[in-house]
C-alpha cells in the first residue's frame, strides 16, 4: 500500500516536472544559432571558446580537487616545500598565450565580415526614441513607427499573458530574405541599442551619430529582439519584431506602401 502510494507520488512528481516547461523556458539556455551565415559563425565562436574554457576548467579544477582529496592533513601527509619552477611557470604563460592566438584569428575573421556593409541592396534607417523604433525604407515612401503592442492589462497582471508577451509590436519590420540589407542606426533622444539575437546584430543607437550594420537573412520567419541599452523608464518595453519574407511578398508589401499589415506567411515562430 505504502509502496504503491510512493509509486503514485513519484509519477505525479515526474508529470509535474514534465509539465513545468509550459513555455519551454528550461531549454532556452544557449545562444541561438540564428538565420544568417554570420550568426552561425558567431555561434561557432561562442561554442569554441566555451569548450576551451570547459577543458581548461576541467584540468585546473580537476588538479585542485584531486589535491583537496589527497593532500590533506587528516591523511597524515607531510607538506612539500617547493615554491617555484621556472619551467612550469614558463609553460603556463606560453600555452594560454598560444590558445588565445588560436582563438583571436577566427574571431578577427568573423569581425571583418561583420564590418562589411558594402554592396547592400536595401537601406533602412532605424531611429530609436523613448520608447519605440522608427523604420525608414530609404529611397521609398515607406516609413513607420513600431511600438509595443502588449496590452497594459497583461503587464499589470490583470489578464493572462500571451505567448509573445513583451515581444510583439503594432507594426513589424518586413524584410526580404537572401538580400543584403544595410541598417543605418541613430537615436532621437538617449542611447538605445537595436538587438535581434537570431541575426547576431546589436549596435548602439546614438544621438548625433549614424552607425551601420548589414545582414543577409537566410530563412523566412518572425525574429524577435529588444532594446539592449538602458534608455529610461520603458527600456524593457520597446521590442523589435522582424518578419522576413520571400522577395515577391516583400515587393508586394512595399508596393502597397508598407500598409498591408503582417503578411502572416512566416513559416516559423522564433
Amino acid at each position, binding site marked *: 500500500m505504502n509502496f504503491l502510494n510512493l509509486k503514485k507520488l513519484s509519477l505525479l512528481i515526474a508529470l509535474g516536472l514534465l509539465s513545468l516547461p509550459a513555455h519551454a523556458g*528550461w531549454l532556452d539556455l544557449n545562444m541561438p544559432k540564428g538565420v544568417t551565415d554570420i550568426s552561425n559563425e558567431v555561434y561557432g565562436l561562442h561554442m569554441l571558446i566555451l569548450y576551451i*574554457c570547459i577543458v581548461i576548467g576541467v584540468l585546473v579544477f580537476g588538479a585542485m580537487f584531486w*589535491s583537496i582529496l589527497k593532500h590533506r*592533513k587528516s591523511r597524515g601527509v607531510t*607538506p*612539500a616545500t617547493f615554491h617555484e619552477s621556472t619551467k612550469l611557470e614558463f609553460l603556463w604563460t606560453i600555452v594560454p598565450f598560444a590558445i588565445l592566438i588560436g582563438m*583571436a584569428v577566427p574571431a578577427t575573421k568573423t569581425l571583418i565580415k561583420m564590418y562589411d556593409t558594402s554592396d547592400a541592396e536595401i537601406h533602412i534607417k532605424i531611429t530609436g526614441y523613448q520608447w519605440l523604433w522608427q523604420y525608414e525604407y530609404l529611397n521609398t515612401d515607406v516609413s513607420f513607427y513600431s511600438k509595443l503592442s502588449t496590452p497594459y492589462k497583461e503587464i499589470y497582471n490583470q489578464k493572462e499573458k500571451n505567448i509573445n508577451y513583451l515581444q510583439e509590436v503594432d507594426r513589424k519590420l518586413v524584410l526580404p530574405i537572401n538580400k543584403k540589407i544595410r541598417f543605418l542606426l541613430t537615436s532621437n533622444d538617449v542611447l538605445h541599442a537595436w538587438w535581434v539575437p537570431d541575426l547576431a546584430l546589436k549596435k548602439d543607437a*546614438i544621438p548625433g*551619430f549614424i552607425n551601420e550594420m548589414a545582414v543577409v537573412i537566410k530563412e523566412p520567419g518572425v525574429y524577435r529582439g529588444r532594446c539592449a541599452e538602458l534608455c529610461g523608464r520603458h527600456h524593457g518595453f520597446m521590442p523589435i519584431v522582424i518578419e522576413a519574407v520571400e522577395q515577391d511578398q516583400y515587393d508586394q508589401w512595399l508596393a502597397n506602401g508598407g500598409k498591408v499589415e503582417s503578411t502572416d506567411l512566416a513559416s516559423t515562430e522564433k
Partner: protein
Amino acid sequence: MSTVVKDTHHDEHPSGIMRWLTTTNHKDIGSLYLWFALIMFFIGGLMALVIRSELFQPGLQFVDPQFFNSMTTMHALVMIFGVVMPAFTGLANWMIPIMIGGPDMALPRMNNYSFWIMPFAFSMLLSTLFMDGGAPAGGWTLYPPLSLQTGDAFPFLIFAIHFMGLSSIMGAINIVATILNMRAPGMTLMKMPLFVWTWLITAFLLIAVMPVLAGGVTMLLTDKFFGTSFFNAAGGGDPVMFQHIFWFFGHPEVYILILPSFGVVSAIIPTFARKPLFGYSSMVYATASIAFLSFIVWAHHMFTVGMPLAGEVFFMLATMLIAVPTGVKVFNWVTTMWRGAMTFETPMLFAIGFIVMFTIGGFSGLMLAITPADFQYHDTYFVVAHFHYVLVPGSIFAIMAAVYFWLPKWTGNMYPETLGKVHFWLSTFFVNLTFFPMHFVGLAGMPRRIPDYSLQFADYNMIASFGAFGFGFAQLIFVYLIVKTIRGGEKATDEVWEGAEGLEWTLSSPPPYHSFNTPPVIK
C-alpha cells in the same frame, strides 16, 4: 627617552563616540571602514532583493519601472563604492602597518578624514531616494544623455561621487606613503606579503583613475547646469566620449575591486596548505601586468558603440591578453595547494570558493572578450552573471575569507568554526543558484536592467530570485558570528593558525593599541 611613558600617553584616547570621531589609529580606522562596509552591504543587498522580487515573475508586481532602474543604479553604486572598496581599505588599514612592521599609517590624520568623508558621501547619495524625480536611474555608468534626465538627485549624485573619489584618493596616497616609508628595516619590497603588494598596485590605480572619473562627472554636471556640450551632439559634443572617459576609469576600477582579494587569497592558501606560496615573484609580476593591461582594454565595454574595425580588434586582443597573468595566478594557487597538508577551516573554504568561482567569472570574461560573440552577450544577463561571479564569490568571498582569517587576531577570540562553515556552504549554494542561471537567460536573449521580461525567461529568473533571498538571509549568520566573536569565545593564540607566517602572527591576539613602536627584526 622612556618608551614606556610615551606609550601610556599615546594609549590614552577619548572614550565613546569621540574616540571614533577623532581617532588616528590605523586599527580603529580599519574597524570603522569594515563596519561601514558591512552596513552598506545590507543596504545594497536590500536593493538587490527589490530587484529580484520584481523579477521573480513576468509582469510588473511591486515597483514602478523608474524605481526599478533606481534600484539597479543605486545597488551598483552602493556595492562598489560603499562595500567592496571600503572593506578592502579597512583591511589595508588594519593589516598593512602590521604586515610591514610599521607603527601606524604614514598619514594618520588624513586617514581619519578619508574615512569620515564616506558617511557624508553616502548620506548624500542615499538621500536621493527621497527626492523629487527619484534617485538616479540611468545606470551606475551614468551614460549621457540618459543620466542628464535625472531629477533633483543629479547634483547630489555627482557630489557624492566627488566625495567618494576624494576619500579613495586620500586613502590610496596614504597606503602608498605607508608602504614606501614605514617598512621595518630588512622588509625589502620583494619580502612584502602579497596583500601589501597587491594593495600597493591597487593604490596606484586609484590615484591614476579616480581623478578621471571626477573629471568625467564634472563635465556631466556642467552639461546639465551650465550649458556646456561636452557630451551633447547637438552642441558639437560626443556622447560616446563620456563612455571612453568613464571606462578609462572603469576598467582599472574593476581591478581595484579584485587585486586586493588576490593578496588575501595568497595569504590564506599557503597558511592552510602549510606550504610556501608557489611563484611569489611571478605573482607580483602578474599583478603588475594586470594593472598595466587594465589601462589599455577599456573599450571592450563598448564594442557595440560602432568603433572602427582596428579599434575593435585592438581592444579584443588586449583584453584576451589579461587571461595570461590571471591564469598564472590561478595556476600558482593550485600549485601551492598541490602536495600541501591542507585543513579546511572557514577562511580556507572561502579562499578555495574564491578560486573556483572567480575562475568561472574569468572564463565568461574571456568569452566576452571575443568581439563578435560579445555583440550577442553585450548588455545581457550573461554580462550580469559574469561580473557578479567575479564580484560576489570573487571580491566579497575574499573579504569574508579575510575577516574569518584575521578576526581571531583582531578580537583575541576564535569565531565558532561550525557556524562559519555553515555560512560558507549556504553562501556558496545560494550564490550559484542566483547567478548561474543568469548565464542561460542572458544567452537566450534577456537584456540587463529590465523590470519585466517575456515568458521564456521566467523559469530561470524565478530560481535566481530564490537564490538571492537565500544568499541574503545567509549573511545574517555572518553578522551574528562577528558580533559573537567580538563579545567573547575561545581565546585565540598569538599564532592563531598552525601554518601562519608573517609579522601579524608575532603580535598578541588582540594586538596592542599601538604595535611595532620599535621595528621588529626581519629574518
